[in-house]
């Protein structure tokens, strides 16, 4: 009788362990794979650089001195753009020094469409940054990426110099400061067709390009050079409407 019970337990344990690995007939251990995102920071066709001249759509020369923003990756979807493969809502705080991000680990599978957006979703946007572990994307940043007076994150901070009078130099008052936030300015981008494979214990790296000139597409920096959102909502909305052009497959 005892032997029968023991045998029964053994069978149950065996079935349970194989159930998890049903796609693997040999029932060998399968390790999760890691999804990484590699970022290539660009300004149009050129590599991003601070304190380097670029030209906006209206012929104004400008330089970036700060370019921080939030990337949100809600998850990955099947070909149908509906069925989730993985849905770990993740925010990343990006600046041009950030070259690699780790989204997370999942069981081996094919990845098809990557969901993404610029900003912080309306739920996370109103949570307390002081409760996050130091170093996490939504914790307090230096320089700050959060508005204390309205309790919300700044989705993108673009600051720099602009040659407003076109005299070939950046005079002291020739600056731009584009700070965009508020729930209504969070924008999802079109899903990216990544078509990658997460392999057993491997690392899948998705190459992405960030175009900082896309943030200011159709923005005339000589006159549209300041928003802290509430004080210049039209300009903030204009920039937010450009968010979906910022990230592409590299």
């Amino acid at each position, binding site marked *: 009788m005892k032997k029968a019970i023991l045998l029964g337990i053994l069978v149950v344990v065996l079935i349970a362990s194989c159930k998890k690995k049903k796609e693997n007939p040999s029932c060998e251990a399968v390790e999760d794979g890691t999804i990484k995102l590699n970022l290539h920071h660009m300004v149009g066709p050129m590599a991003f650089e601070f304190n380097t001249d670029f030209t906006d759509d209206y012929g104004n020369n400008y330089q970036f001195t700060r370019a921080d923003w939030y990337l949100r990756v809600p998850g990955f979807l099947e070909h149908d753009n509906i069925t989730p493969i993985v849905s770990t809502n993740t925010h990343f705080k990006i600046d041009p020094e950030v070259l690699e991000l780790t989204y997370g680990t999942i069981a081996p599978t094919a990845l098809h469409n990557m969901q993404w957006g610029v900003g912080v979703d309306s739920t996370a946007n109103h949570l307390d940054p002081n409760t996050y572990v130091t170093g996490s994307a939504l914790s307090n940043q230096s320089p700050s990426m*959060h508005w204390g007076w309205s309790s919300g994150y700044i989705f993108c901070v673009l600051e720099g110099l602009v040659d407003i009078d076109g005299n070939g130099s950046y005079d002291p008052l020739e600056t731009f400061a584009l700070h965009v936030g508020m729930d209504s300015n969070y924008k999802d981008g079109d899903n990216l067709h990544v078509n990658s494979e997460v392999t057993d214990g491997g690392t899948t790296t998705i190459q992405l390009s960030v175009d900082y000139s896309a943030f200011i597409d159709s923005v005339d920096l000589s006159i549209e050079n300041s928003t802290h959102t509430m004080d210049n909502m039209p300009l903030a909305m204009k920039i937010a409407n450009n968010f979906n052009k910022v990230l592409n497959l590299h």
Partner: protein
Amino acid sequence: MNKLILGFWCLFLLSCSDGKELESELFVINCFPLDSIPANFPPIDYPKDNLPTKERIALGKKMFYDKNLSADKTVSCASCHFATRSFSDTINVSIGAHGREGRRNASPLHNVAYLPRIFKDGGIPNLELQIKAPIEDHLEMNYNMHELTLRISKDSLYQKWSRLAYDRSIDAFVITRALANFMRTLISGNSNYDKGKLDTTILNASAKRGMKLFYGEQAKCYSCHEGFNFTNNEYMNNGSHIVYKDTGRARITLKSIDHGKFKVPSLRNVALTGPYMHDGSYKDLWAVLDNYQKGGSGQWNQHPNISQITFSNQDKMDLMEFLQNLTDEEFLNNDSYVYSLNL
């Protein structure tokens, strides 16, 4: 006499060495029981992650008076929120780090534990989140929460107190929770008006006439300044200005219907919280009463409650007498709110 002796003991203990500092603070707090919320006040709804303890309050008080919270180490919370002014400032807009002028008149902090939202425009939902705003505002402390954490992490005393209060190293969580914890102890509810409910001889005849006006249909002050804290906690345009450079609540909601609306302030200790209005542009209570007497500025979004009031000079003096009796001397002179160490 007993209070004097107790006060000397507090001072003596506060002058002790670092190792005794927390014990001294706790002693001072013990001098004034913090669970003595006035009977007519509702219970405080404490956040679950920040229940009050004496250690937390002591830590918050130390921070409240610490100029290290500002970028250039020139201003603390207490630099703009004076205890003897019900934790408000005496000037139109306060002077922050680097000598910069602020945007709005500093609000008094009494009874902030009861506010459903924080700031004159209600932009912040709770005290814990509010702490970050003045620390990072470039016109106030002009610092950064992350940098502040790094700065005060080096202070062994803060680390020790943080562990005692929150069982963790000092960080943004501890800073915001401790300060909020201290601020929730700023309870004011023992004015002559309050005492007069039990002893009808405390308010003089003029104050009683003023109270009748306050709660009467002629002035209808009560229609906005209601309840135990003399505020309905609503956002209203009181017609104090014709042009509002500061759009008030609309800054948060972006709705024109909220243009020029600001939170109805509590009137407790109001005689000491001037200058008045969101920008401090009304230098005294007479100016405020004059505005209500004439029915406000007639600004397009002015609340309909604000309409011309027929006041005699005696009426105004009586009303003023009543408002003077909303002053809570024990609160203003409560040693447990004062941090006397030289930080």
